[in-house]
């Protein structure tokens, strides 16, 4: 009986060793949601690692750009005003300056305008198509050619191949990777937003340009909008859309006072003061504002310190800096290349953007309130910028994904025509948002 028993064991063991049966449809659908949750900590770690890498690369890029701004150059700065020429004797745009009107009466009430804060919209991106994997099952026939048995302890039969004399005609090939990628969900819409850091470097070497650059700091600005993407191929995506961005910088060393209206007589066009900045010349349009600079010849006015002293006139000090803001509508055309196209995708992003100036303002901030000063004149109504970035995409589902895109943007032409080509603005932002494929 033992031999017969072993025989029957052998028959079944070898007969079923490589047997395959296609499982019913829908089993994977029951498995996948469960294992997705289980693998979440690993995904989070990968996301954290990817963010760390992207932020590091971006910061290095930013630092590199800052270093470039300090390189010496023999070129002249657009704002280079000879020291021998007093500002009052070199009126800009042939404006006529009037002497200050003397008066003993002082008005200490600030005459100001409060601006509203900026709202932030959002933007988007695209996904990949899941691969479909099929496989082929082959059936087998078997026969035992002799009665020799193997009564020893068996190993797991799926590992070893035929040890005994049993011959089984059976193909090991049971899987054919007929991977096909169907081009679906080519379109996607995304809403994205980013805090933006604006700065610039200049290639001028004169003292004034250096001083201007040194006194200017970026204001944390915002950019956001809606983007449409079209998947050209498995790796390439073209994207366009409409963004609204608010960029700004803070100009230190400019003292502003209120209560100047009784003393000032606007005869120089519509402004009393002009302030030189790297992104253009600020013209005041608030007649109640008096401006003075700590050093350098960056304020052009008839009311210089030798003809008007704000302290003697008891003007109300407001602030020691100005905030320059520029608002643009952006029309980007961006090409994305998918470096990694998995649950977490990594993209290389590069493209151009046309930026239409929609408004600009100069203000100063006191106790959280903004007081209007004027506007920046001579700004280019249309600027062109190039962008380079790395995008990270985490697919929440087949259609929905989260996006993170640290992006460096370099403006091919300066914001202001008056600054010539010596000022090179750039910005850095980390865009984040959600995209939906359809």
């Amino acid at each position: 009986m033992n031999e017969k028993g072993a025989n029957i064991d052998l028959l079944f063991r070898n007969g079923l060793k490589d047997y395959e049966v296609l499982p019913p449809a829908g089993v994977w659908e029951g498995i996948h949601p469960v294992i997705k949750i289980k693998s979440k900590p690993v995904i989070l770690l990968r996301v954290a690692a990817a963010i760390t890498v992207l932020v590091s690369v971006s910061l290095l890029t930013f630092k590199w750009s800052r270093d470039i701004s300090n390189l010496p150059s023999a070129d002249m700065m657009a704002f280079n005003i000879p020291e021998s020429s007093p500002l009052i004797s070199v009126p800009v745009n042939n404006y006529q300056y009037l002497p200050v009107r003397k008066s003993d009466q002082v008005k200490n009430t600030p005459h100001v305008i409060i601006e509203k804060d900026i709202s932030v919209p959002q933007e988007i991106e695209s996904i990949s198509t899941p691969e479909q994997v099929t496989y082929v099952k082959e059936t087998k026939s078997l026969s035992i050619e002799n009665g020799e048995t193997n009564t020893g302890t068996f190993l797991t039969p799926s590992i070893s191949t035929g040890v005994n004399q049993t011959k089984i005609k059976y193909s090991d090939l049971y899987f054919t990777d007929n991977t096909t990628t169907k081009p679906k969900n080519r379109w996607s819409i995304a809403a994205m937003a980013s805090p933006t850091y604006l700065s610039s470097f200049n290639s001028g070497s004169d003292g004034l340009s250096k001083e201007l650059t040194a006194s200017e700091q970026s204001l944390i600005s915002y950019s956001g909008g809606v983007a449409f993407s079209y998947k050209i191929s498995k790796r390439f995506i073209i994207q366009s859309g409409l963004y609204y961005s608010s960029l700004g910088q803070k100009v230190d060393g400019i003292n502003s006072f209120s209560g100047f209206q009784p003393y000032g007589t606007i005869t120089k066009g519509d402004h009393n003061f002009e302030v030189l900045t790297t992104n253009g010349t600020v013209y005041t349009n608030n007649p109640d504002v008096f401006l003075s600079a700590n050093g350098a010849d960056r304020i052009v006015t008839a009311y210089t310190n030798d003809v008007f002293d704000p302290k003697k006139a008891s003007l109300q000090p407001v602030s020691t800096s100005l905030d320059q803001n520029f608002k643009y509508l952006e029309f980007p055309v961006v090409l994305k290349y998918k470096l990694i196209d998995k649950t977490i995708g990594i993209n290389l992003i590069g493209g151009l953007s046309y930026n239409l100036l929609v408004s600009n303002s100069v203000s100063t901030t006191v106790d959280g309130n903004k007081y209007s000063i004027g506007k920046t004149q001579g700004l280019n109504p249309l600027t062109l910028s190039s962008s380079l970035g790395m995008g990270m995409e985490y697919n929440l589902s087949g259609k929905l994904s989260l996006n993170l895109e640290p992006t460096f943007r370099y403006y091919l032409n300066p914001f202001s025509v008056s600054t010539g080509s010596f000022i090179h603005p750039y910005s850095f932002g980390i865009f984040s948002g959600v995209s939906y494929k359809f």
Partner: protein
Amino acid sequence: MSEIKKILKGCLAGDRRDQELLYRRHAAKLYAVCLQYSGNDEEARDILQEGFIKIFANLDNYKHEGSFEGWMRRITVNTALEKFRSRHNLYRVDDIDTIQEQDSEPENQDYAGLEANDLLGIIRELPTKYRMVFNLYAIEGYSHKEISKMVNISEGTSKSNLSRARVILQRRVGSYTGIKKKVANE
């Protein structure tokens, strides 16, 4: 890096496509195992599903020692056993010497013509308690001592169940091949 290692790496990183690829590549073989251990297709499907969930959950425990397919198969078998333990109780046979096997197996039995799906059909007709022991002993290669611990029975019961299973299988194989030959001759 071998292909399976790449797939495993992707699975551990939560890559959906690698997970699906792993499933697609091994589901058919493991489903056949599930069918061996289950009495009906619904139960086999449940075992396959639960088995794969355990496989993915324990992927980081796989040390790349031995066959990955064997590792998956063991998990699947254990899942089947868990299901079996929760639903069935094996009858205890205290004295295996009292078992009188009916030696009715045809002499010089010729198994030619039997295909794998025939064998699967025959094995699935066994009573659950016999099917479990036969599978673990004859197919997986476990000893009676190991089987006694796995299915919570005595070694004697394991031997008894195996013996009875063999008798039933020999009869059915015999009658099955007979029928097949008859059909072939006709």
